[in-house]
């Protein structure tokens, strides 16, 4: 069997890099959590490229140990020995990690990645170390700063180093570090600099003054980030309110139906998203990430269909009796909620953000804009534009406006009012369905989803002025931003109460909403 022997040796040679560090994985697997932490810290201070696969596996939670404490790495269900070619004794169990270890693994990983070839990887690692570097890594960072060729990575590393140098014995080094930290807008730098203001901590007056200057700089940058963050959250909340209310702006604003079942249309839209997600999981798992896009038309047509069916069977008999639509649609909403509860269960269902809607973009050190919120803001504007175009640039829109302004006259002009009513209600419901898709990406999907948005939706439409699309847009963003300005000052609960009180006061001034029609109103 010479070939088999050859192969075996070849295999051993391939394992050599691992074998040369024989013991790391085994040490780790055998250690207690406290020891494991020590090990990781020492690895972080002295990176070794060969340890990278082990750290990667640890980070992904793929390292297991059998009953002999021999470490294995799991790969697609198969266990492979980290060192040597041992077969697991019994079934290996994954190593139990806790948050402290995970943090240390990430930090060790970062210091190993400083040696990577790709500057982007090195940059990310350097940034991570700005947060997590420990004094033991001082030497490593010092060396890397000296040898790093890429300017950007070197800057990032210098900052990480500066964090550690704040306690350097040489005042000149401390001074330089303090000055450097002033350049950042990192919230951590602020805490670090603040401690230096205390003469008991920092005995050098020059450094203290420099720290003060740097601190002022950092604070200014942080303030900018905070304000931008507030503005963004206001916009984001506004866009959510808008998506929730836009359908209602049509069914209630234009058709005059006090549509208490509007919230349930949002809910149906969200459940459609859930169903599409399930279908993708079952039928096309490779394209799962695209399911929210596919959910848009599905949700639109499902809710529009339900809306049109309701219009045909119930609501069409109630035109001209607006307050009675309240009663009937309230009944419809009860039925829809319970129906969903019976079909899908009372619990929330899981609608996951696909990767392109997860996470966020780090704009400033203290400002992350989540992708799902950015997309929803854009989507809200898109839907508004679409609705506006539909209502103002199409035949259907013309008919809808004609019917809502003067039903009899429109009928005389040959507008098929029945069909227009149905289509308009369907459109409003469909838009609510689109809103539901968006809402499913940030909150709960459960039978009560609609109930939590219905009051806000009515407030937006009424505040904007019934029948005024532009008013609804303005009202939604106004409410969103006002809410987010008040919340940090007085808390979420009082903020909400105050907003409601302000709305009540505002309506005193403009009883017909923001965008009321002026002129001769005959009643």
């Amino acid at each position: 069997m010479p070939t088999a022997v050859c192969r075996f040796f070849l295999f051993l040679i391939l394992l050599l890099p691992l074998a040369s560090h024989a013991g790391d994985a085994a040490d780790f697997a055998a250690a207690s959590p406290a020891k494991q932490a020590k090990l990781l810290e020492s690895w972080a201070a002295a990176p070794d490229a060969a340890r990278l696969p082990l750290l990667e596996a640890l980070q992904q939670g793929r390292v297991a140990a059998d009953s002999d404490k021999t470490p294995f790495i799991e790969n697609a269900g198969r266990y492979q020995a980290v060192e040597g070619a041992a077969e697991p004794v019994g079934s290996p169990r994954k190593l139990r990690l806790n948050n402290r270890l995970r943090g240390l693994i990430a930090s060790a990983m970062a210091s190993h990645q400083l040696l990577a070839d790709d500057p982007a990887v090195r940059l990310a690692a350097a940034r991570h170390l700005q947060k997590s570097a420990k004094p033991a890594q001082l030497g490593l960072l010092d060396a890397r700063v000296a040898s790093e060729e890429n300017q950007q990575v070197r800057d990032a590393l210098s900052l990480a180093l500066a964090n550690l140098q704040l306690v350097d014995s040489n005042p000149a080094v401390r001074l330089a570090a303090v000055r450097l930290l002033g350049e950042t807008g990192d919230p951590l730098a602020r805490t670090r600099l603040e401690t230096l203001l205390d003469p008991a901590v920092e005995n050098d007056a020059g450094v203290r003054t420099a720290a003060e200057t740097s601190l002022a700089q950092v604070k200014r940058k942080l303030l900018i980030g905070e304000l931008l963050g507030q503005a963004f959250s206001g916009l984001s909340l506004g866009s959510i309110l808008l998506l929730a209310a836009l359908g209602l702006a049509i069914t209630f604003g234009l058709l005059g139906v006090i549509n208490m079942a509007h919230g349930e249309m949002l809910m149906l839209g969200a459940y459609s998203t859930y169903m599409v997600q399930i279908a993708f999981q079952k039928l096309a798992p490779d394209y799962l990430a695209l399911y929210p896009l596919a959910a848009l038309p599905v949700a639109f047509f499902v809710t529009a269909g339900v809306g049109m069916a309701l219009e045909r069977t119930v609501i069409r008999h109630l035109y001209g009796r607006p307050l009675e639509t309240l009663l009937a649609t309230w009944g419809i909403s009860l039925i829809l909620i319970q129906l969903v509860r019976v079909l899908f269960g009372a619990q929330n269902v899981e609608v996951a953000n696909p990767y392109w809607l997860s996470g966020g973009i780090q704009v400033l050190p203290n400002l992350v804009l989540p992708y799902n919120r950015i997309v929803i803001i854009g989507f809200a504007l898109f839907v508004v534009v679409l609705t506006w175009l539909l209502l103002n640039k199409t035949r259907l829109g013309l008919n809808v406006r004609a019917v809502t302004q003067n039903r009899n006259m429109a009928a005389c002009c040959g507008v098929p009012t029945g069909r227009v009513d149905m289509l308009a209600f369907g459109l409003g419901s469909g838009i609510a369905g689109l809103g539901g898709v968006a809402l499913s990406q940030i909150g709960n999907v459960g039978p009560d989803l609609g109930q939590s948005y219905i009051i806000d939706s009515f407030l937006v439409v009424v505040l904007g002025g019934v029948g005024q699309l532009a008013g609804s847009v303005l009202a939604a963003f106004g409410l969103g931003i006002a809410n987010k300005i008040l919340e940090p000052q007085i808390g979420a609960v009082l903020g909400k109460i105050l907003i409601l009180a302000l709305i009540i006061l505002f309506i005193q001034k403009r009883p017909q909403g923001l965008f009321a029609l002026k002129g001769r109103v005959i009643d």
Partner: protein
Amino acid sequence: MRATPLPEFMLEPAFDPAGSSRDAIGASAVAAQGLNIRHGTILTLEEINVSFDGFKALTDLCLYIGVGELRCIIGPNGAGKTTMMDVITGKTRPDSGVAYFGETLDLTRMSEVEIAQAGIGRKFQKPTVFEALSVFENLELAQKTSKTVWASLRAKLSGEQKDRIDEVLQTIKLDASRQRPAGLLSHGQKQFLEIGMLLVQDPQLLLLDEPVAGMTDAETEFTAELFKSLARKHSLMVVEHDMGFVGSIADHVTVLHQGSVLAEGSLAQVQANERVIEVYLGR
């Protein structure tokens, strides 16, 4: 809906048909109201401007109505006739200008209710009555009396007030329908009911917006007679498109165009006015 029997308190003693149906208003006297009309002018509008979102509905409008005068206002659609009435009754606030009722009451500073209580009555273009209430109840509400909450909680019709209502019911020929809900009346009947409501309200200045729209010829003729009998004791301002009707009642006609007065004078005078002809015939 069926006619419903009248609650006991609404049942009336038989009405005396000998009463003068012509002089329906009875013995009210303008001067007795404390309204200062020393200079013989009951309504003064000067330089009134109103605009809606950039559209100028009234432009420097000037108009004076004398005490006891019957004035007809004519003008093409969109001339500002209804807006002018809105300004007088306080429904629309002018952007600028002066509006006085008598010599002392500044209409631009009064609320609709105050204006109505001061003695300006208005009939809407579209007949507006309280549809759920009976004809009798409509008149009861309109009748001149204290209109505070407290008063209405303890209100009981006096014999005198019932007589007044019966009298007006006769005048507007709705005696037989007194118990019918007003919502069931025909268009013309609603017009008369609304006029009746003005009569029991007993205002000094009546603003009437297209009072004969939807009336038969006979009804129109009767209305003309009624208005003529009201003039002198009351001041009337009638907006109307029906030139025949205008001709039969008016001694003085004002033509409005694009929010301001185009011409004033007798009907013959304004009909001969070059600019009026131009506006009406589009030459």
